[in-house]
Structure formats: C-alpha cells, structure tokens
C-alpha cells in the first residue's frame, strides 16, 4: 500500500484541494484579475463617452445621462419593478424547462422507443425561435404572466433536453454493466447511474438555457407587457427616452451575469459528479 500511495494519483486531489481552499496562492491572481476588470470597465466608459459626444444625445445616451436615467427610474420604483418582473418570469420559465427537460432527456437518451417518438418534434421545434411564437402565445395564454413564462419555458426546454440526451447516451458502458451485474434494475440504473453521469451535461444545458431565457425575455415583453425590462426598453423608445433604453439594456446584461454567477454557486455541491464551474 505504501507503494500504491506514492503513485501519482493522490497528487491530483491534493492540488484540487489547494485550488479549492487556498486563497493565499491565488491572492495576487485575483488582485490582478480585479485590477484588469476595473481597467476594462473604465476603458469601456471612456469609449462610450466618446461615441456619445460624437453622435449626440438623440442617438446615444452618455454614461452620465444613463446614470441619471437609472437614478430617476430607481427613485420612482420602475427599475426595481422591471427587474423583479423579468427575473420572476425568467426564473419560473427556466426552472420549468430544466425540471421537464432533464427527465425527458434521460428517458430519450436511454429508451429507444421514447427517443424515436419524440425526436422528430425536438428536431423540428428547436429550430423555431421563440419570437415566432410570441403572437400565438398571447392568443393562447393571454397577455398575463403565463404567455411569457411559456415562452421562456419553450426556449429553455429544448436546450436542456438535447444536452441531457448527449449526457445520457455517453454514460460509460463499463459503469452500466457494473451496475447491472450488481443487481440494479433498468429503472434503478437510470436513476443511480445514468442521471449522475449526465449531471455535468444537464448543468451545461441549464446554463445555456439561462442565456436563451435572457434572449427571449425581451421579445416576450416587447409585444405585450406592462412591466419588465423588455417592456421598459420598448416603452422608453416610444417616449424618446434613449437614456432609459440604455438603462434597460445594461441592467439586462448585468442581471444575466448575476444569474449565471448564482447558478454557478448553486451547482457547486454537484462537484463530485464532475461538474466544472
């Protein structure tokens, strides 16, 4: 055993741990990264300011105008209301997409008949962008919350399914055989081997779906919504408030960034399944 333990294998977990725990070796690295982030933001603001003064306030809102706009919108509560409305829709639609998509993907990946029945529809619908369904969604589900949530769900579910299938299909054959010879039934294998093996793929699918949801929320809210970031962008344009349009766009991007960060923190406990975040 002493022999075995001096083999290279333990070296990896050790370095894993030091990467996980060790703030110290990363200190300079994160300082540097933080510094570069600030440099990048400042540069961006400078370019933005130059562009704004070149085109004038009718076309491009300058950073300070945008900031003022944001302060106004925040003060009258519109901004928070918009953020909250959009976040809620994205979260509900996306979560439904993951909760429905992952099991469907697992079943499609492992059970030929399920795959053969559903595959044509998956292959068909995944090429139709949600914006094509905005009108129908409103006719079918009204102008309330459900039409937007359905659209977010639609844009999430396919990407989750497709990623989950690729995870389920690529489950290691040796593990499947091992489980079968240890006495696991078909459904036990699906739950205890295929699902854990597919988790990294499901997480990838969920992250891509989050991106899709942000792409979709604007088109969903532009057509019929009183509130939400998409609605804010659209109505501000109608009022000729370029600065508010800028606020909407910037908040949307920041919100997406934040959601992805939160998601990455939430999937951290899944590390033992091979999720890399």
């Amino acid at each position, binding site marked *: 055993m002493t022999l075995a333990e001096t083999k290279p294998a333990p070296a990896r977990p050790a370095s894993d741990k030091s990467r996980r725990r060790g703030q110290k070796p990363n200190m300079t690295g994160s300082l540097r990264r933080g510094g570069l982030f600030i440099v990048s933001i400042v540069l961006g603001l400078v370019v933005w300011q130059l562009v704004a003064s070149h085109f004038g306030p009718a076309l491009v809102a300058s950073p300070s105008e945008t900031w003022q706009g944001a302060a106004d919108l925040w003060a009258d509560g519109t901004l928070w209301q918009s953020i909250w409305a959009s976040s809620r829709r994205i979260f509900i639609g996306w979560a439904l997409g993951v909760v429905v998509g992952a099991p469907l993907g697992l079943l499609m990946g492992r059970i030929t008949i399920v795959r053969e029945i559903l595959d044509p529809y998956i292959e068909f619908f995944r090429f139709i962008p949600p914006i094509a369904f905005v009108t129908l969604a409103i006719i079918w589900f009204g102008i309330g919350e459900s039409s937007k949530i359905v659209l977010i769900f639609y844009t999430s579910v396919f990407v989750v399914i497709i990623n989950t299938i690729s995870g389920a299909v690529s489950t290691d054959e040796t593990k499947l*055989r091992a489980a079968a*010879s240890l006495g696991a039934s078909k459904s036990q294998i699906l739950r*205890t081997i295929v699902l854990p093996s597919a988790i990294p793929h499901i997480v990838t699918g969920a992250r891509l779906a989050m991106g899709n949801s942000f792409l979709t929320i604007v088109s969903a809210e532009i057509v019929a919504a009183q509130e939400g970031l998409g609605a804010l962008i659209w109505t501000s344009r109608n009022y000729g408030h370029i600065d508010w349009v800028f606020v909407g766009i910037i908040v949307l991007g920041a919100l997406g960034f934040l959601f992805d960060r939160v998601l990455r923190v939430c999937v951290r406990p899944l590390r033992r399944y091979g999720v890399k975040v």
Partner: protein
Amino acid sequence: MPLTTAKSTGTTTSTAPAAGVRGAALDLDAVTIKFGDFTAVDSVDVSVRAGEFICLLGPSGCGKSTLISAIAGFEKPANGRIHLEGQEIRGASLDVGMVFQSSEALFDWLTIRQNIEYGPKMRGVAKKERQALADEFLSLVGLAHCADQLPRQLSGGMRQRAQIARVLANEPRVVLMDEPFGALDAQTRQVMQQELDRIWRTSGCTVIFVTHDIDEAIVLADRILVMTAGPEATIKSSYDVDIPRPRDEAGDEAIALHRKLREDIGAEVRKALQGQGLTQEGS
C-alpha cells in the same frame, strides 16, 4: 507493504466473511460468440468446478474479454449455452460478479463505502445490515481507512481493491476478473495477487481470472486455460497447477510450468502476429 504484514493476514483466519457463500459450478457448452459476421469465440467447452480458480491466458485480441462478458451475461452467445449450477445464464445476474480492468467501473460520485453498498442497496438490504457488510468487506480488502473518500482520491491499486470489495459484498457465487491488475506496476500487482489469493480462500467463490501475465496465472490458478489466437478463438490447452499455496513463482515447479506455458502461448502469439501480417499483405 502493510498489506502483507501479520495484521492483514491475521484477518484471514479471524474473520470469515461470506461464510455462507460457496462457489458455483459453471458449464460452457459449445459457446460461440459473434459480432455480426465476425466470429470472435468459436465453440468453447469448459467445465469449472465450484470454488475453482481458473486463469484464462491468451494472445491479445483473442477473445478473453468477450468470453467472460458472455459468462457475465453482457453478451449473448450466438450458439451454445452457459449454465451456472444447471441454470442457463441469460443476462446479468447477482450470481456472477465482474471486476473490470478499468477502475472507470467504480461510480466516481459515490464514496468507496457507497460503492460497496451499491449492490446490497439495490437489492433492498436494510441500512444497518448494509453498513455491516460494507465494514466487513472494507476491512477484508484493507480499505477501512479510506471508506469515505471518492474513487479518484485513491491510487490505482486501492481502486481495484475497492472494485473487488464491491463485487464480493454482493456475495456472488462466481467472480469474473478481466485483467484487474493489468494497469498496476509490477510490485503493486504482486501484493494484489497475494491479497486476492487470501481473499479467494476466505470467500470460497469460483473465480475466472483473465490475464496476460504467465507468472500471475501460476501464482493464482488451480487450472490455467490457454486460448488460441482469434478469430474463432477456442480453448487450446489446460494446465492443472498443483503447487501448494501461497505460491512462490521462483519455485522449481513454477519455473517448469512457466516454460511450458510460454512456449504454448508463444506459438499462438506468433500465429496472431502472422495472421495480422498476412492480412496486411492481402489488403
């Protein structure tokens, strides 16, 4: 090498895990295995006694893995039958356990203990009992100290021991091993062979052990089967090994047997290489 110290050999006599489990006899009757039109294994006849330790030797690619996959129920023979105590084998079963060459077979997201408890858990064994089983087999293979680690945190040799424990915890009557120590260095392999010899004597199950290594076969086997070069591989010859255990591969008998086996397999390996050479010229 703590594994071979008095402490771990002590467990051999003091605990008798799986005392109720006994090996099962196996009968292979004209077993032919095909992949499409390709006949990998052609009419193999073998009878294995209950509790016997068989080593399967043969040139690379001859069909050793294919043959034991069929015994495990993973491949269905195109012809012929495989019986375990008179019952035909159809599909994977609890009676036949398999230790794979690659430790990819361990479930990476489960701890070593959870891996070992997997079989009993799927069978619905109660939690207390499962824990007791796991403890028993963890100490049998000397892994009690890393029960709660993940497979990737262990060395290659430890992972293979975990695989062995996982299979034994399921109390199979036949254990198949496909070059389980193939990826280990020579010294670790030697320790593992001694361990396996000890474990096999405690558990009493039937073992079919695939290997490339003649010395390994001599140390472990009651009987060594040599396969012909594929395709259409079959059993070429069979050697009884009557050397008292634990064995020393440097003993006179072992050396004489080694020489015979080397010639026997050497001929098949040459045939295999020639076959590859001819097909190269032909194409």
